[in-house]
C-alpha cells in the first residue's frame, strides 16, 4: 500500500508543475501539427512527410526547427497542440491539420494569435470566414470536384451517374460540391449512397447502383473504402466507368489493388507525383522515397510546396508571423505541382488533375489538367 501511494504521488506530482512547451531557441520554428493517429493518419502522415522533407531542404542554408505534434482526430487535441506550438516565440508559421473540423476550431485561435497556418484541408468553409491567417495549398473541394465532374461529363460523356460518398467531413462536403456541379449541367444522380468507413461488403451498394440504371460511378471515398469498392466492382464484373476522388490517387490505396481492378478507373487529385512528368518531380519522388521509404501522394507534394513557399518567404526576410502572413498573401510561388497564389481568401491552389489507369500498371497517367478559378 505504501508503494502504491508512493507511485501514485509520483504520478500526481507533475500535475502540479506547469506544462512545458518546446524549449526556446533562437532558430525560427515551423511546427508540424498533423493527425498521425486515428482515421486520417494516412493523409496526415503524407502531410508530415511533405512538410518535413521541405524543412530539411530549406533554401539558403536556413535552419528551421520543426516539432511534429499529433492532432489525432479531435478539435480539442488540435487546439492544445496549436497553443503549445505558438507558446514558442520563434514560431513563424504552423503546418496545420487537414481535418476540416480541427481547422474550424483552430481558426479563432490563429486569429487571436495572428499566426499563419499552412493546411491541406479541402473543406470549403475554412477559407470562407474571412480569416486572413489560413493558407490552403491543396485545391479545395470546388476545384477538385470540378475536375472530377467535368472529366466525367465532358470526356466520359456520362449522363446517369451513381454517387457514392463517405459519411465523413471529406465525403459530405465533396458530395455537396458534386451535386451542385452536376445540377449546373442538368444531371441528377440516379442513385446516391453514404458509406461509413467501416463498411466492408460493397455488393449491395453496387447492385443498387446497377439496378438504378447508372452508367457510371462517381466515387468520393477515402482510400481504403475506394479500394474495397473497386475490388467488389471487379468481382461483380461491373464494367462501368469509375471516376473517383483523390483517395484513389494515394499510393497506399493503389497498393491494395491489382492493376486489372483499376482498369476502368480515373480519379481527381491535386497532383500526381508518382506519374513524375518533369525532372524536378522525379527528384522529389526520389528524395521522398529515400527519406520515408514510400511513394508520395498529392497531399505530401502539396504540403511540400506550401512549406517550401513559406521557407522561401522566410529566406526573404519574413521572419515573423506577421511578415509571413503578408508574404504568403501577396506573392506567387511556382511549386512542383502547380503555381500557388492566394485568391484573397487564402486559397493558394487553383488547379487539379484527373489521372487514369491502363489496367496493366499501378502508375497512373495524367489524363487531363484543369484550372479552376
Amino acid at each position, binding site marked *: 500500500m505504501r508503494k502504491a501511494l508512493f507511485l501514485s504521488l509520483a504520478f500526481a506530482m507533475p500535475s502540479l508543475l506547469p506544462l512545458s512547451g518546446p524549449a526556446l531557441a533562437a532558430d525560427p520554428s515551423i511546427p508540424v501539427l498533423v493527425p498521425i493517429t486515428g482515421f486520417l493518419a494516412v493523409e496526415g502522415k503524407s502531410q508530415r512527410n511533405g512538410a518535413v522533407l521541405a524543412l530539411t531542404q530549406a533554401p539558403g542554408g536556413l535552419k528551421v526547427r520543426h516539432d511534429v505534434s499529433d492532432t489525432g482526430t479531435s478539435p480539442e487535441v488540435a487546439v492544445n497542440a496549436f497553443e503549445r506550438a505558438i507558446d514558442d516565440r520563434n514560431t513563424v508559421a504552423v503546418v496545420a491539420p487537414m481535418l476540416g473540423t480541427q481547422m474550424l476550431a483552430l481558426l479563432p485561435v490563429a486569429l487571436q494569435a495572428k499566426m499563419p497556418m499552412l493546411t491541406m484541408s479541402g473543406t470549403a468553409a475554412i477559407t470562407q470566414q474571412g480569416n486572413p491567417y489560413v493558407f490552403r495549398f491543396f485545391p479545395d473541394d470546388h476545384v477538385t470536384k470540378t475536375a472530377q465532374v467535368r472529366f466525367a461529363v465532358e470526356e466520359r460523356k456520362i449522363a446517369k451517374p451513381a454517387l457514392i460518398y463517405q459519411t465523413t467531413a471529406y465525403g459530405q462536403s465533396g458530395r455537396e460540391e458534386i451535386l451542385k456541379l452536376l445540377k449546373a449541367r442538368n444531371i441528377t444522380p440516379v442513385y446516391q449512397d453514404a*458509406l461509413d468507413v467501416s463498411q466492408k461488403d460493397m*455488393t*449491395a451498394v453496387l447492385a443498387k447502383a446497377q439496378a438504378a440504371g447508372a452508367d457510371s460511378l462517381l466515387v468520393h471515398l477515402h482510400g481504403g473504402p475506394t479500394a474495397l469498392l473497386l475490388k467488389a466492382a471487379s468481382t461483380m464484373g461491373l464494367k462501368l466507368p469509375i471516376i473517383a476522388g483523390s483517395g484513389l490517387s494515394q499510393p497506399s490505396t493503389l497498393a491494395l489493388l491489382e492493376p486489372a481492378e483499376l482498369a476502368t478507373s480515373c480519379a481527381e487529385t491535386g497532383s500526381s507525383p508518382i506519374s513524375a512528368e518533369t525532372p524536378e518531380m522525379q527528384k522529389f519522388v526520389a528524395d521522398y522515397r529515400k527519406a520515408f521509404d514510400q511513394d508520395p501522394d498529392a497531399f505530401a507534394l502539396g504540403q511540400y510546396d506550401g512549406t517550401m513557399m513559406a521557407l522561401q518567404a522566410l529566406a526573404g526576410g519574413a521572419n515573423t508571423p506577421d511578415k509571413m502572413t503578408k508574404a504568403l498573401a501577396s506573392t506567387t510561388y511556382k511549386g512542383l505541382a502547380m503555381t500557388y497564389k492566394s485568391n484573397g481568401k487564402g486559397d493558394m491552389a487553383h488547379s487539379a488533375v484527373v489521372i487514369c489507369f491502363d489496367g496493366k500498371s499501378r502508375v497512373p497517367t495524367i489524363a487531363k489538367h484543369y484550372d479552376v478559378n
Partner: protein
Amino acid sequence: MLALQLLFNAIALGAAYALVALGFVLILNATSAVNFAQGDLVMVGGFGALAFGSLLGLPGIVLLVPLLVVMIGIGFLLAFVAYFPVRKRPPDTVFITTIAAGIIMSNGANAIFGPEPRATPSLVSSGDWQIGGLVVSYQSAAVIIVAAALIVGLHLLFTRTQIGRRLRATAQDRDVAASIGIPVNLMVAATFAVGAALAGAAGLLLSRNFFVSPTDGANYMLKAYIAVTLGGWGSIPGAVIGALIIAAFEVAFPALPALIPALAPYAEAFTQVWSTVVLYVLILLILWQRPQGLFGEAVRARP
C-alpha cells in the same frame, strides 16, 4: 442470384465475426468481465499475418499456424497485464485495463506498420469459381471453411479434452473448480489465450478481403459486443448466431431495394447508414422486450 451472392458474402463475413464474438464470450464466461481489447486483437492478428506473410512468403492458410502460436502468447500476456492485477476488483476495472491495452495495441501497430490500410496474403490463392452468376472466390470459401473448422475444433476442445472440461468448469463456477483441484488461474489465462487466438484468426481471415489498419479495432469490438448481447450474454451458440445475424444485416439490409422491386423507389432510405440505425434500434427494442437477449435465459435474482 443476387440473393444467393449476398447470402454467401454474409456467411463469409459472419463466420469471421463469429470467431471474434466467440473469443469475447469465452473470456466473458471465465472472468465475467468485458475484454474491450478483443477488437484490437483482430487488428493485431491482421498485422501479424501481414508480417508473417512478408517474412515467409507463404499462403495464409499456412501462416495461420505461427499466427495462432503468437496470438496465444499475446493472450497470455493480456491476461497477465490487464486481468490478473485487477481480478479482485469490480468488473468494470477490466473494462478500463483492456481499453488501455487496446490503446497500446493500436498505437503500437500504428508506430510499427504505419496507418495505411494493408491487405494480407490470400488464404489459398486468388481467383474464383463462377457458378451461374454466383461468384465464389477461393478466399471467401476458404474463410468459411477455416472459420467452421476452428469453431468445430473449439467445440471438440471443450467437450472431448481434459483441458476443455477444466476450462468449462472454471467458467461455470470458479470456486467449485478450485475446490476440486483445477488450477483456476491457469485456466483463466488459457481462456484469454484461446480468445486471442480466435480474434487473431479472424484478423487473418478478414484482412485479405477487407484490409487491416490500426484503427480497425473499435469496429470489431462493437460487432462482437452486439453479437454476444443479441445472442444472449454468455451463450456460445448464441454468439455465433448473433454474429451471423449482424453480418446478414450489414450485407443484406442495404440490398433490399435491389432484391424486392417494390422497395426500389425507396432505395435511398436503405443506405448503409440507415441500416446501422435500424440495427441499433432493433437491438434496443429486443433488449427492451427481452432484457436477457434473444437466446439468453431469464434468471430470477436471489435476494
